[in-house]
């Protein structure tokens, strides 16, 4: 299996304020790869650099060093907005545009890509069904008329709109109540198998990470201190991994 996403020696340093003076390093020497159909979970405390790593991958932040290769091509080889249209991006809570309906939100990237209206409409219906929302009931609603769980479903549908090979998910279920959260996690597991996408899933919840990830990476202070399967994670003696496992027990 070839890797959809390949990251080597990724580094990000905040732009320094004074001359010749470097800024704070937020991500240092992160290397990972994700194959089609695989979900890599990035686990870490807040401020550990996991969200920053995601934003470096779709170039919302410009890496200070290292290489990112997506579907065999270097991420720096294309204009950032073109790159991002080929990467599904799901974020917590505010990801939907409040002035657009569900249908317009899901169809946004296809619209940017210039798809004909009929094709967009058909694709939107297909996606809403996929994420478990009845199109006739939900297509015309605006985000504030949805529950938190429904919003996240729309967010996932939107990320899948142009069928990108890679999905980045930044704590997509973070703001949900525990019951809705468990429900969406279960459904997400079902989707993982069916979609065959490469996914990077950021969370600070170990249980969620172990449930959804084929492999788990643990980040601490900008570095990837552990990368392996769930079983390897449980056997790992790394103190940060132990701290996470201890918190979940």
């Amino acid at each position: 299996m070839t890797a959809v996403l390949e990251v080597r020696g990724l580094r990000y340093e905040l732009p320094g304020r004074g001359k010749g003076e470097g800024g704070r390093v937020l991500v240092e020497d992160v290397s990972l790869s994700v194959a089609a159909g695989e979900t890599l979970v990035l686990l870490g405390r807040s401020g550990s650099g996991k969200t920053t790593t995601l934003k470096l991958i779709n170039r919302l932040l410009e890496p200070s060093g290292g290489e990112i290769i997506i579907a065999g091509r270097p991420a720096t080889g294309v204009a950032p907005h073109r790159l991002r249209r080929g990467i599904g991006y799901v974020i917590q809570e505010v990801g939907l545009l409040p002035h657009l309906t569900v249908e317009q939100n899901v169809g946004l990237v296809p619209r940017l890509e210039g798809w004909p209206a009929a094709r967009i409409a058909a694709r939107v219906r297909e996606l809403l069904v996929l994420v478990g929302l009845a199109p006739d009931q939900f297509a015309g609603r605006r985000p504030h008329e949805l529950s938190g769980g429904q919003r996240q479903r729309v967010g996932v549908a939107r990320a899948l709109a142009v069928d990108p090979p890679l999905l980045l998910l930044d704590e997509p279920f973070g703001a949900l109540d525990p019951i809705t959260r468990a429900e969406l996690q279960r459904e997400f597991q079902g989707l993982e198998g069916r979609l065959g996408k490469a996914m990077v899933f950021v969370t600070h919840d170990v249980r969620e990470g172990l449930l959804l990830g084929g492999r788990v990476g643990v980040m601490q202070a900008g570095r990837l201190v552990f990368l392996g399967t769930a079983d390897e994670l449980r056997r790992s003696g790394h103190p940060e991994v132990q701290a996470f496992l201890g918190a979940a027990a």
Partner: protein
Amino acid sequence: MSLVRFYLNNAQEVLGLLGQHVLLVLVSTTIAVAIGVPVGILLTRRPSWRRAVLGLANVFQTIPSLALFGFLIPLPLLGGIGARTAIVALVVYALLPIVRNTYTGIAGIDPAVREAGRGMGMTDGELLRLVELPLAASVILAGIRVATVVGVGTATIAAAIGAGGLGVYIFRGVAVVDDRLILAGALPAALLALAADGLLGLVERRFAWR
């Protein structure tokens, strides 16, 4: 009652002045929007210019309107006697609320929403058109509403430099100490301001997303 009789007797003149007044406000506000909205957008892209530009607009705002009309008269191109000078002055007054509201409307958008748009692959132009302007629309329209209402009032002074409008009656009334004549100009001007306020308020509410 005598006011009603005055209007009936001078119907043609009243309508003519009202028309002039509406035209003065309409033209000046349109020009102010055409200048002010792009300037406001520019300020969100160049935050370091904000202080200077808003400061300048503020200074214009503090010049007493009658004085500004007077200052403009001797200027070449912009000045002289008549509607053109009045429109220049009205544009100057309308700029501040429009520029300021365009800036604050866009700057006040949740950065996470903007980032979501960029994360989906929007270019700067698409972000402006599809996210920033629609979300800032109600704030921008509120600025246009303030500018319009203030413009209706200020335009009465335009009569002082021969630009016509409802101010003609007010100045004439002041000159001959005739309350009825002052009222004949002031009343429709006030109603016009209220109508503009109500109408633009309706439009503004259409753009409130929550």
